[in-house]
């Protein structure tokens, strides 16, 4: 193994993560200004751009690491990290963009990411099915993971939704033939449920050996259910959904800390990072909850203001 290549990959991942985090941090000062001057649906779009970027950050780090581990044995394994990088850039750009208009390049990137995610899911399903035992637990645990490419699909979908929303009128914007708040609530609610499902699978694989491993399989599903409920019923303030979504955001970042600590519990700990990063819990995974929470909160804000 070339240690150098590893190191560069590591540094690239970290930089991408930091950039994504910085981009999605909302600055309260700016926000108040925006609230007055801008329309809510643009704010929502920008939140979705940012959420998409954060999710793509997870995907970039994760796919770069896992495909490196798989020695990039198939050239298409380079595609997801590349596409995720573009998705991050698009998200950073869109997060700062206040124009009430779809950005063609970003929109195209998002579609690319979604399609890559879809194709990746297909590849991973094929990888599982061709192994002895096919659709069994061991393959679900250890063969190419289903959740990873779906995260890219989700990142693309969030971004594409953001772009399409920008083209909508400020008053009563619509997406997919329904009120935009409802559509985005459904999208982020389902995405959150999927993210929680993946965490459940992997934490089940880890036998829930630590109590904290129950957090991402209880709080986010509750948040998801409340969000879906808010999307499907008539619009009104939903404080409980908001609280649960904020807690989900917290779960994402605390999860990161727990996973960092989890790596340390492997033989040799962080001193042996070049092996334990791969053997330990995936460090880049938990922030995807923070990403989904951001999207969910933005969708909820929009939904709460939609006419009854």
């Amino acid at each position, binding site marked *: 193994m070339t240690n150098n290549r590893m190191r560069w990959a590591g540094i690239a991942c970290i930089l991408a993560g930091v950039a994504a985090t910085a981009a999605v941090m909302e600055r309260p000062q700016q926000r108040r200004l925006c609230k007055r001057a801008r329309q809510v649906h643009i704010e929502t779009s920008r939140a979705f751009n940012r959420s998409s970027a954060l999710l793509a950050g997870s995907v970039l780090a994760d796919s770069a690491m896992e495909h490196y581990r798989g020695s990039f044995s198939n050239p298409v394994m380079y595609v997801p990290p590349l596409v995720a990088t573009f998705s991050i850039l698009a998200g950073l750009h869109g997060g700062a963009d206040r124009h009430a208009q779809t950005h063609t390049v970003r929109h195209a990137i998002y579609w690319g990411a979604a399609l890559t995610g879809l194709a990746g899911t297909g590849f991973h399903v094929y990888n599982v099915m061709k*192994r*002895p*035992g096919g659709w069994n*637990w*061991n393959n679900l*645990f*250890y063969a190419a993971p289903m959740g990873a490419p779906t995260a890219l699909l989700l990142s693309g979908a969030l971004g594409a939704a953001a772009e399409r929303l920008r083209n909508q009128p400020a008053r009563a914007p619509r997406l997919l033939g329904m009120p935009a708040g409802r559509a985005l609530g459904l999208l982020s609610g389902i995405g959150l449920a999927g993210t929680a499902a993946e965490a459940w699978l992997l934490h*089940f*694989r*880890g*036998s829930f*050996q*630590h109590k904290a491993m129950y957090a991402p399989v209880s709080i986010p599903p509750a948040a998801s259910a409340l969000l879906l409920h808010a999307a499907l019923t008539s619009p009104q303030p939903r404080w409980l959904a908001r609280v649960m979504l904020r807690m989900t955001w917290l779960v994402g970042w605390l999860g990161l800390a727990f996973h960092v600590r*989890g790596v340390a*519990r*492997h*033989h040799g700990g962080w001193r042996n990072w070049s*092996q334990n990063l791969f*053997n330990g819990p995936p460090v880049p995974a938990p922030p995807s909850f923070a990403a989904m929470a951001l999207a969910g909160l933005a969708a909820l804000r929009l939904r709460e203001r939609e006419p009854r």
Partner: protein
Amino acid sequence: MSGDPQHEPRGKNGRAPDVLRVGGWMPMREYPQNEAVDFAIVGTGAGGGTLACRLAEKGFKVIAFDAGAWWRPLEEFASDESHQKKLFWTDERLCDGEDPIKLGNNNSGKAVGGSMVHFAMVSLRFRPEWFKSRSILGYGADWPIDWREMWRYYRIVENALKISGPVTYPWGPKRGRYPYRAHELNAAAMVLARGAEEMGIAWSPTPLSTLSAPRGLAHPCAYRGFCVSGCSTNAKQSTLNVWIPRAVKAGAEIRDLAMVGRVAVNEAGLCTGVDYFREGRWQFQRAKHVVVAGYAIETPRLLLLSANGRFPEGLANSSGLVGKNFMVQSNQAVWGLMDEEIRAYKGPPSLAITEHWNYADKGKDFFGGYAYMSQGPLPVVWTLTQTKRGLWGEALLKEMQHYNHQVGLKMVGETLPQERNCITLADEKDAYGLPIARVTHAYCDNDRRLIEHALDFMGKALDAGGAKDIWRETDDTCHLNGSARMGSDPRTSVVNADGRSWDIPNLWICDGSVFPTVGGVNPSLTIQAIACRTADRIGVLAARGEL
């Protein structure tokens, strides 16, 4: 770190090594020699170590003796097969009979923790019918214990060791979920799986006693494959890092580098304690009860060595069965080559298993059953396997180049109990001046038919899995059992279901020697289950005043 654990005892001065921390110590209770402790246990392996823990946790005063050293895996287990021979019982023994067995690394350990320190971690339950194999299946002998009771104790042991096993197990009655999930399969295990699917039989990830996720201070498995040379990460859950630390915490004393040479018996025919050799001299520990748990060779040897005027044929031997019905398990294999790289040594050696022929009764021309598993021999073991085959020089060199492509299936097969297979005392003496054990072994026709069936089937399965140049390794054995069987009749057994000897009420046996039959699975889970049961029974008897 302190001193050489093979020359300087570590369990001393009120402390014991804490094997989960580098250089760590934990307080350990010590008992004076002239105080009769409740239980003196000889051997700290799967049987003795587990029993010491469970008895101490019930409040009994326990001392467990082991002839071997108290190792610190994190510091003292090297990734070096030759160096790790230090874990094996390599004291002199004589082997004879029609099919003499080879003793050493594949059979028995000498260390605090016993053979589990270097066992392969395969943790299987008996097939329920085997506990009544005479009455239900028509061979061997019945156990005096009901399978349902054993299944309860299996569960307890599986939880204690956090066995990593499949979500659903394909054979036998439904069992609760294993505490930890099964490990990822390596390429060698995939070959077994593919072969089994081609042959139309079930296969499964093997339930293993190594962690697939962290547990307290123990690290999860690092998949380096050194398991049978001792696990340096503490991922392997064994007597050494599970039962013994629990025992010490509960107030048991463990005396390492303490070889017991005799169980003392008084005029009344009761045990009074044990003579043991430690720190260069013979010493005596008084005890109200003595438990022998030295594994299937050393247990009968010690009982025979302890013969006296009152029991001239050895202790607990009124049936004449001490040392008799000694059983190995057949451990033959088929090997072949794959086109792609397999690197079978990555990860625990036996990641996939099929127990099909343990549970199927049709299509057999023999009694008993066998399981077979994927394999991951380390280089030295692999070289020896090749030289045994007659390869040397150029030919050996050439064969070894295929190391990364070799793949194999190895059986664990049942052999039938036979009185002629036995442990007796030889005239030669060991370093302590004690007569060494003579191990006499021969297969019976049934054993040979079973082995032939297995080799034939495994050969086909390996071929179906995609291997070529397939050849047979025809002469390996593993696991030693029997030699002091339990039963419900004093005339045909040495101990009762509780491991209590029929002849001497305060003499007990708790290890692999009490097996009336071996079944076709690795024995240590069963040994530990029996130890847990024995401890519970002792608790019950004590409460009733029947000890």
